[in-house]
């Protein structure tokens, strides 16, 4: 029914597309500027869960979304605490996964915040050893103060964090906020969690 010519032509066209696609000819990125000296963010190799967690802190200190994105796994899930879930129902109406996380961090950094007082784990936190290809951190307390547009907002919460080894590197795959935490030196009302920051920025 079909002539061999049509089939061969189709194969030839498909072959050309394959070759073009394989050679990377479709799209070209922009040419970056050479780095300034002394401005590098000193990220750690993702060979340990604690390095990955520390890298998130470095990303916050430098407003570098790339650092956050590289350390958050493809299967990432964020589970908000009850307060954040109640305050921002639209943000958490559907599961918060890597796509939402990447959008959040890019948008947050594009506000140009000054993230001072970044502390990703509290003093005395006993870092658990990885168990094979996973590591589970229970009740780690983080602390972040954000200055933006002349106002200061502090986020301090307690969370359970799951890390997983994917291929050759560790990533954060689950972040479950338990609830807000007060200032340990001046106990009072608890501060909001990262869930509120995510909900606001959504």
């Amino acid at each position, binding site marked *: 029914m079909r002539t061999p010519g049509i089939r061969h032509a189709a194969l030839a066209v*498909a072959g050309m597309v394959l070759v073009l696609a394989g050679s990377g000819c479709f799209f070209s990125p922009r040419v970056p500027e050479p780095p300034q000296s002394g401005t590098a963010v000193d990220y750690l190799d993702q060979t340990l869960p604690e390095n990955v967690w520390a890298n998130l802190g470095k990303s916050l200190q430098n407003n570098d979304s790339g650092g956050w994105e590289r350390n958050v796994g493809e299967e990432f899930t964020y589970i908000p605490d009850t307060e954040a879930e109640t305050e921002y129902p639209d943000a958490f109406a559907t599961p918060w996964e890597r796509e939402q996380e990447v959008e959040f961090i890019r948008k947050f950094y*594009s506000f140009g915040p000054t993230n001072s007082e970044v502390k990703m784990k509290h003093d005395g936190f006993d870092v658990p050893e990885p168990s094979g290809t996973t590591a589970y951190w229970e009740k780690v307390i983080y602390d972040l103060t954000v200055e933006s547009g002349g106002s200061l907002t502090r986020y301090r919460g307690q969370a359970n964090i799951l890390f997983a080894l994917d291929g050759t590197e560790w990533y954060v795959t689950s972040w479950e906020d338990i609830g807000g935490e007060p200032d340990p030196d001046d106990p009072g*009302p608890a501060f909001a969690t990262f869930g509120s920051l995510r909900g606001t920025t959504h």
Partner: protein
Amino acid sequence: MNGARSMSRDALTAGILLCLLLALLPAPAAAQDEEPTRDEPALSHEDSLLAALAEKDPRLAALKDKGELQVDGAAEPLFKSLKTSPKGGVKATVQKYSYYGELESILSMRGGSQVQNRAAYSWDDYRSYDKVVESRSNRFNYLSGGLMPFYLDVNANWDWSEDSTVNSQGVTNLIKRDNRNAGLKFSKNELRTGALLHDLTAGIGMVDESSENRGAASERDEANARFHLQTGWELDPGLVLAGRFHGEGAQGDRLLRHRVDTAKSLGDSLGAGAYYDRGWLVGRAVLTQSTFESEFLDWRRNDRGAPDTTGITVPDDQIVRERKVAKKQAIVLENEVRFGRVGLELNVARTVDETAYAKSGQGTQEKFEEKVNFQATFATSRDSFVAAYEYKWVWDDQYLQAGTRRGRQNKRRLDAGVKWYRPFFQSTRLAVVLDQSLDQQIPDDRPNGQNKDILRTAASAGLRRAWGDSDVELSVRWNQSQDLAIGSDKSIENNTRDRYEISPEFTWQMRDWVRLSQEYTLYIEYRDYDYSDDSSRQDSYDKRGNLTSFLTFDPTSRLRVSLKHQYNRFFKAKRTGEAAGGGSVYTTNSSQTISQIDFSLSFEPVDGVFLETSTFRGRDHKLNPQSGSESSTYKGKVITGLRAKRKWGSTNPVEIQASVEKVNAFGPGIRPASADYWTIDSWVKWSF
């Protein structure tokens, strides 16, 4: 103020209850002649009876075909059945203990009409931290089905919860929520006036929500109404012009901390479109525009939208009466053409929206999104191809309340891909996939904007051969990711990662009751920093091999035994120099070997009762070849349990499910709460 609020709410509740009572009354006989509504069962009771009679007697079948066979629909009783199902259960996991109960009642009536009510209670007590959540809820719903000439949906919901979490300082964060809402919705589809066909929906409702969070109360009481009309005109078979109008409004009060004020909202949406279906050509073109205005009490918010009470000591000044106006315009064009073995699909969409706040520091936000998707498919007698292209451009901008502009942040995505499928010979199939995408973040007059490109290229080929229940598969993948910050302040991290992956696997059904499968995956990843010579960044490569073997025995229908072994080896090396003949020299600086064996057994001594046990033991060995240091950790787990699911009776059945497991674990990362615990998942349900 509160009295008026209460009166309006009571009047609305009374109205809803009156409508509900009216809805539950038998429908007039005229309802039988109306066109079926969208949720009516495919066959009415009368149609079912007619079909049954016609099937029994060919003479009746002939009468039915002529339309001369009729049955009296009123013969079907108004109330057909009432089913009540109480259920109670308990669940214990490593995370929490849960106790729950529910009572569900379903009253089925003539014409598919139904009343359903579900009351539920639960108590969750968390094990590893001090948190208790108590929840109560009730959901009532009435669906008119085909009982009335229109479709009626009545619902009333109540959700109550109290979440008490004790923080590390021993202070309790208490979050209370008590939400009630009720509403009724009328709809009538396929109303015809001349050449026009209408779908009509109207509804009213009420919301009464109150919550308390960190000592601050929040309440919302409002009544709402909405109306939706969609009208279509079939110009020609396969060509329809349609218009749509949607309007909604709400009015009530809002309380925040101690301040009470009125709240209101009004929104409308207009849409018009052309829909066509000519068999070989299918598509639509739709334009929509919507506006939504609302006024309500809110916390004072900063330019990011976060509550901001910095420097405001008077509590009432921390609360403002906010006015929000949101506008949106969208256009969507979708088109699909098919000529024999060639298919072309093109989708284009553009959305513009603007949200303005009167008080919040966010000011006015603008967003724009444009998308184009194109896909072509082509098939020959043996080969089939799919080529796809995607273009997406999104930007957002913001004019802050303070009078400054934040600047525009652009995001652009380009993606192109090709897939090729070819059957090599019988039961053997080849799949080749190539894809390249470019994600760009480009700031425009935005000082803190993100400025970055990520180029991803992926290629994979897979070959699969199946023999009955057995199969062999081989896949080879290559992914490259170029991560490029454009600005000089961040470009030192720029790098290219090349990842190669090869993964052969097979499944062999050795006997009816024995199956063996093995999968081997080898990953090699190179990371080259663009500026490694100018910084402390070192190029590196990682290699990981995973071998997983799985053996399953099903010697009888009641016994299943499985054995699994995982062997995982990992090397990490840094580039330490250049070889004399060119190329790079890498030095291994860490290696890791993980080995784990799993065993599980399931035995069903009597129908519906299973005895189950599983265990694993693993070893994790790390070595640093440079320093010679090494360490080993061990982990393991034993789970023993019983699972049963039984059902007694068929008309008023009692169902029981019970699952009890004892878990013992050791190893790194195992806390006391997860080292020795029981898991339970048991419930009993009676339906009558």
